[in-house]
């Protein structure tokens, strides 16, 4: 929906998912919402009180037929989600009833809302800032408890509060910098270079932390992706099936059975964990298998965690793909599978020796597990380790980025602040620093969907103590 399509139409839509359900909710928003609703629900009083529910029968506009027994709730302008006068009609679920009701509401003068239009209006009416508006969508689409918690935090203005605080901090620095420029000849130093540097450093550090939270935020929203990789027939598919508990991957004893990537998901501590079972990594002439292997490499790139599964019974002939070495040691778990084939209890030692042989550093930074995916105890152990990992990933932070638009703007803000800091430290002229800080402010305003204007100057007036 283009940003220019704001108009004064009264809009309507069914807000519950399509299909048969217990009830369906139809929302009408706009200056004529009450009038439109009354044409279909004549039992709503003309001077309806806000936040009151009215009971009665919905009728066709021509009043000839009754449609359904409904409840209608009225929200006055400025007291509703969109900020406009709103009526929500709850009717019995079911395609026919809700569609007929919608048809009559449109006949009564409302236009069908476009996707996101209610939220857009809430934003335009300053009920929400842009970050909050976006979180509404995230909340609706949340696929796990943690993701919905995070979206709700954004809706309540957590991230917005952080950005507003950041804006204040940048304003302070800019205002003092400007005062230093314009009052240089009046023997007034509003802030010393040392103070400007220290404040800038602390803002750069805080923006850095927020940017780092993007990985975490994205994981909260989308869940964690674990790529299960390794040589053919090491038991990757069996492992995933054991964890997910359903036959998602076809398991055979023929090496190279999984030629494409297959996904399975699991909720761990309220976080969605998606396993990506991949084609085994080996040199092959088979075109289809080659294609599968290149997908495997792509899966490694996308993954938050890579599980490299090797066959403890056949380590010597296990091929090692370079893609595994490119994974950071914190993101790589080495799983020695088929302990059932190593009966002398030397699995760990064997795996360690083998790793020392195949890689320069013996992959010493990575976690190692020796298990058998056929043994339920092994699988339970791995699962509990995974839970620990999830807890570790989601320690509390103040602001969490989940959205790529936010991340891009934070990158802009960070670049500008970095440059500003560097310029101050190099002793460059303040006007260039100010230019960078203004660029950072533009990023902040874009983030919140606000304009950039002379707020900086207002701040000069307010902050700078020559006046009151």
């Amino acid at each position, binding site marked *: 929906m283009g940003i*220019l399509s704001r108009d004064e139409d009264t809009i309507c839509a069914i807000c519950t998912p399509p299909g048969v359900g217990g009830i369906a909710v139809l929302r009408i928003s706009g200056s004529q919402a009450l009038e439109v609703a009354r044409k279909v629900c004549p039992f709503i009083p003309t001077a309806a009180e806000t936040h009151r529910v009215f009971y009665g029968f919905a009728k066709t506009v021509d009043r000839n037929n009754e449609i359904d027994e409904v409840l209608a709730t009225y929200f006055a302008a400025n007291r509703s989600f969109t900020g406009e006068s709103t009526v929500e009609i709850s009717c019995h679920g079911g395609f026919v009833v809700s569609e007929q009701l919608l048809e009559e509401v449109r006949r009564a003068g409302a236009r069908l809302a476009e996707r996101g239009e209610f939220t857009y209006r809430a934003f335009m009416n300053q009920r929400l800032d842009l970050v909050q508006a976006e979180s509404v969508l995230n909340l609706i689409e949340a696929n796990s408890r943690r993701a919905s918690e995070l979206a709700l935090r954004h809706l309540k203005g957590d991230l917005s509060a952080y950005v507003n605080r950041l804006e204040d901090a940048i304003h302070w620095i800019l205002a003092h910098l*400007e005062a230093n*420029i*314009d009052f*240089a*000849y009046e023997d007034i130093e509003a802030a010393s270079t040392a103070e400007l540097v220290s404040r800038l450093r602390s803002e750069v550090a805080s923006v850095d932390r927020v940017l780092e939270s993007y990985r975490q935020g994205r994981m909260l929203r989308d869940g964690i992706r674990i790529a299960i990789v390794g040589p053919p027939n090491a038991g990757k598919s069996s492992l995933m099936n054991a964890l997910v508990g359903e036959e998602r991957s076809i398991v055979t004893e023929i090496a190279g059975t999984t030629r494409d990537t297959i996904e399975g998901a699991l909720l761990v501590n309220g976080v969605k964990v998606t396993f990506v079972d991949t084609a085994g990594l080996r040199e092959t002439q088979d075109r289809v298998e080659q294609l599968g292997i290149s997908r495997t490499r792509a899966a490694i790139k996308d993954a938050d965690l890579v599980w490299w599964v090797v066959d403890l019974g056949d380590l010597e002939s296990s091929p090692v793909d370079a893609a595994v070495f490119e994974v950071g040691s914190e993101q790589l778990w080495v799983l020695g599978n088929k302990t059932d084939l190593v009966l002398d209890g030397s699995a760990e030692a064997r795996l360690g020796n083998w790793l020392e042989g195949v890689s320069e550093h013996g992959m010493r930074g990575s976690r190692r597990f020796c298990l058998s995916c056929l043994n339920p105890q092994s699988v339970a152990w791995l699962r509990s380790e995974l839970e620990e990992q999830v807890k570790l990933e989601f320690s509390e932070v103040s602001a969490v980025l989940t959205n790529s638009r936010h991340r891009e703007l934070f990158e802009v803000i960070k670049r500008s602040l970095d440059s500003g800091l560097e310029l101050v430290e190099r002793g460059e002229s303040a006007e260039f620093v100010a230019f960078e800080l203004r660029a950072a402010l533009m990023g902040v305003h874009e983030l919140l969907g606000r*304009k950039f204007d002379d707020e900086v100057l207002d701040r*000069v007036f307010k902050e700078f103590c020559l006046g009151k």
Partner: protein
Amino acid sequence: MNADFDVIVVGAGHAGIEAAAAGHRLGLRVAVVTSNVDRIGYMSCNPSIGGLGKGHIVKEVDALGGEMGRAADETCIQFKRLNARKGPAVRGSRAQCDKFLYSDYMGRFLRGLENIRILEGEAVRLLLEGSFCRGVVLADGSQVWSRAVVLTTGTFLSAVMHFGLRKVAGGRIGDSASEGLSDQLRDRGFNILRLKTGTPARLRKGSINWSALVAQSGDERFVPFSVRSENVLKLPQIQCHLSYTNERTHEVIRRNLHLSPMYCGVIEGIGPRYCPSIEDKITRFADKDRHQTFLEPEGLNSDLIYLQGMSTSLPEEVQYEFLRTIPGLESVEILQPGYAVEYDCVEPSQIRHSLETREIEGLFLAGQINGTSGYEEAAGQGLVAGANAGLKILGKDELILGRDESYIGVMIDDLVTKGTREPYRMMTARAGYRLHLREDNVLERLSDRGIGAGLVDGVGRERVEHLLKSRRHLEELLEAGRFVPDEETQRALLGIGTAVLGKPMSYADLLRRPELSCFDLMRLGVPINEDERVWEPVEIGVKYSGYISRQREVIFQAQKMERVLLPDELRYNEVSGLSSEEVEKLSRIRPRTLGQAGRISGVNPSAIQALVVYLKAAERRRGPIYFESRG
């Protein structure tokens, strides 16, 4: 009706002179009404022109054909470029002038202009016909008829001077106040504000112990304000001296604050926050143990010393007491005590960008009457008001300067969009596009506008063309010329303290090295035009090209909003989606462009959105919305 003149300018201060001169350059008959013909272009306060943000305005006035820069160049007795070692956008030229010679120069200039009549007298009333201004009535009862009137009354409207708790009617020592005009304006529905300003004591030169003070000289190099001036100073250069207040000074002032009209509630007007009195400084910066003051001679042969930074309205005997605690001033004599002035001004959001009032057609306002402070701010407005009065009579396009073109444009847009509650002083922080609005590129920014409007005379046009051509030549030379890493070049490079070359390099790229300037390239034998006014702007353009182009991009983005014109007759109450506060503000201020609408405080982004939608709908009904064509 037969008009005696095309334009009447009331006031012959810094705004009045530029307004009259602009009218003259447009070929119109101009009358200048002043109550004191001996004080044309008089410096009522500090004896200097320019400074940070203000030097920019002087150069802009010059590029638009104004006279302030010429007068400052001719009468300069100390020249300084402030922030010379900082970046190019925050350098400001400042000339201390012999204020008597300055006033003489301006008097001769104005009298020398054809078709300008100087009328000694006081304008007490406007001649109005309906909503049109047709002239003025003088104190002697005579009526002077015209087609437009420019009011540049400075601090004289219903002015009261405060010497301690003693009040005297008048806008300046030696001159009377102008009564009547502000009452008439108030009756016509104008919102009138009361402002305050102040000036420090003038000291007798011979009573100061100069040996106790730190002397400060001007710059070696002189770069004139005006494109029409030579790079040569006409007058001998003087030194200023620096001294400081101390705890004893502050103690005297604190002990006597109850005698300051500012502090005991006698003065209601709001003072200039950015040019505070010494009482203000001591109160607001209580932890500062000293404040600096410059002792500036008011003229080469004058006995008057101006005490910069020490404006005060304390009684004269208190001024004596605290001044004599300052090193060098132990036995100082005061020739004229410091005092405060309270005066009326028009709340400036009631005027248009052309500086014509909304209420009364043909009435233009410029300078302190619009709530500004400073000679330069006044001159910039005077020029725009005089030009627009003339252009209106001639039926030509208005002269409206953008925020992306000039400090004058920033100032006027600020005034008409936000109004002001205190004397408005220019600061570089006000310019959103500061990296573009530099002193060095003022001709590139404005000379086309000035020439296009017919404000620049033949000499000015010739000099502008010559300078711009020389700059272009130099730019081409720097881009095209190359150094090759031969032995001789490498040795020469080491000789000027810079690294040798690894491969051939253009002159421009070498110049980008932070340690090098055009001087160094000259030493390497590059034939660079030695006129600083040619090479300096080019050097800045080369050295800061990265930031300059980023600034252009910001301007380009903002122009999208600035180019959408809002019709003056737009009925905001018919635009759906505006809050009642927004309707009230938009209807009152009547922004010219969508960009300006967005700068009005209290007008939200959603209102801009609503306006866009409304204009689009209007376009469907009536044809295209209005886009400004510029140049």
